[in-house]
């Protein structure tokens, strides 16, 4: 069970449909492993339903219902979704070429022990979405962001100032949260990240690495 969750505001934006596609993908990956957040979103959708039922109606144009009825026979029907299996790690397996239906680019070298692959999200809206794969023991130099960074751990674990983040955990960081994550345990760590703005490395090693890091 996840211990780190997206911020409530992020979840509310997901439920409202106002969260951009890239961050929605990260939140959706978290849901696959967190029934608590899914229940919160279901409660928000219930709130939306109550507000909808209580909205003051605005009349449709004359004959709108008749027009809809006349179209029904041309509408293809969708059958019930078959019973779904329960799983702890449904969204990503190492061999997968897609992530929840999104195409993945090839793994590319970023720095020793660190690889990066693009997740092809069409409507980015200033958000870059990518996966990171880091070897056990790797310490990523202290860095901060000019925008926000939303991360979901898909496998393995990392530790930073905010605690330990294992599979299913989400790190919903603001631009001012400088951090220096370190991979924990003896398994490589794979993360899904939606990042707005630029990554800024700090410290001498960071400044030396900056030209090589093209994330």
């Amino acid at each position, binding site marked *: 069970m996840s211990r780190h969750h997206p911020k*409530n*505001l992020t*979840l*509310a934006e997901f*439920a*409202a*449909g*106002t969260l951009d*596609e890239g961050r*929605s993908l990260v939140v*959706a990956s978290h*849901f*696959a*492993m*967190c*029934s608590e957040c*899914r*229940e*919160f979103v*279901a*409660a*928000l*959708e*219930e*709130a*939306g*339903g*109550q*507000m*909808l*039922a*209580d*909205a003051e*109606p*605005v009349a*449709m144009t004359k004959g*709108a*219902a*008749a*027009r*809809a*009825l006349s*179209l*029904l026979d041309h*509408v*293809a*029907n*969708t*059958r019930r*979704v*078959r019973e*779904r*299996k*329960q799983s*702890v790690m*449904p969204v990503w397996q190492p061999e997968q070429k897609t992530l*929840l*239906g999104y195409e993945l680019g090839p793994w590319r070298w970023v720095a020793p022990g660190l690889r990066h692959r693009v997740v092809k999200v*069409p*409507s980015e809206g200033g958000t870059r979405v990518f996966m990171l794969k880091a070897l056990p023991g790797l310490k990523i130099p202290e860095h901060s962001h000019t925008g926000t960074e939303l991360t979901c751990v898909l496998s393995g674990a990392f530790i930073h100032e905010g605690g330990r983040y294992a599979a299913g955990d989400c790190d919903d960081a603001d631009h001012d949260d400088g951090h220096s994550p370190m991979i924990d345990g003896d398994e490589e760590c794979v993360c899904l990240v939606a990042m707005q703005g630029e990554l800024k490395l700090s410290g001498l090693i960071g400044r030396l690495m900056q030209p090589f890091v093209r994330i």
Partner: protein
Amino acid sequence: MQAVGQRYFAEGVTYSRWHFGAGLSQTMGMPTGTYDITCSADLARLIEAVAGERDREAFTALFDYFAPRIKAVLMHSNTPAAAAEELAQDAMLTVWRKAAQFDRTRAGASAWIFTIARNLRIDVARREQRGRVLDLESSEFLEPPPQPDQEFDTSEREQRVRVALTHLSDDQITVMRLSFFEGKAHGDIARELGLPLGTVKSRIRLAMNRLRDLLGDLT
């Protein structure tokens, strides 16, 4: 503004007694009937009738109930009337198409239709960029691991949400309605309420945190 927000929640949802339009059914050559919509279970039954028997009368009842409300909400979020009407039409056709997927043990009728309208709105916004909607009910998603201490029944959730909303302040209800329900940008809300952007952002954040606490406390 606040009075309206208050009305949304304070007394819970009031289902107006609704009667099926006899004039329409005659022109469509269908038997006349009356559907009373007095509670959320009535709406669920209508969706199930559409799913099971392809019941056009039930569909018309749902249409007459929800389409004008979906249109209203979209017009509140600055969608022009004609586009709002078209999206409401699309939403109701989606209800017909997906009725078999409705499961009252997973979501209430209004919540289900809210998500359909929301997903259509996202779809329209992302279509130009070929983006997609992440639909948690799609087969790409598997069930999350069960959480034994948090087994919610739909009607229990409905009640829980209704009570939680009455505990939010007027200010919190207002920003929640504008940002969450109408999907307005924080900057637009700041202009509408005549408040600094920072105040709006923190108010929305506090409202959502409070709501989550309340939903947790009501266990």
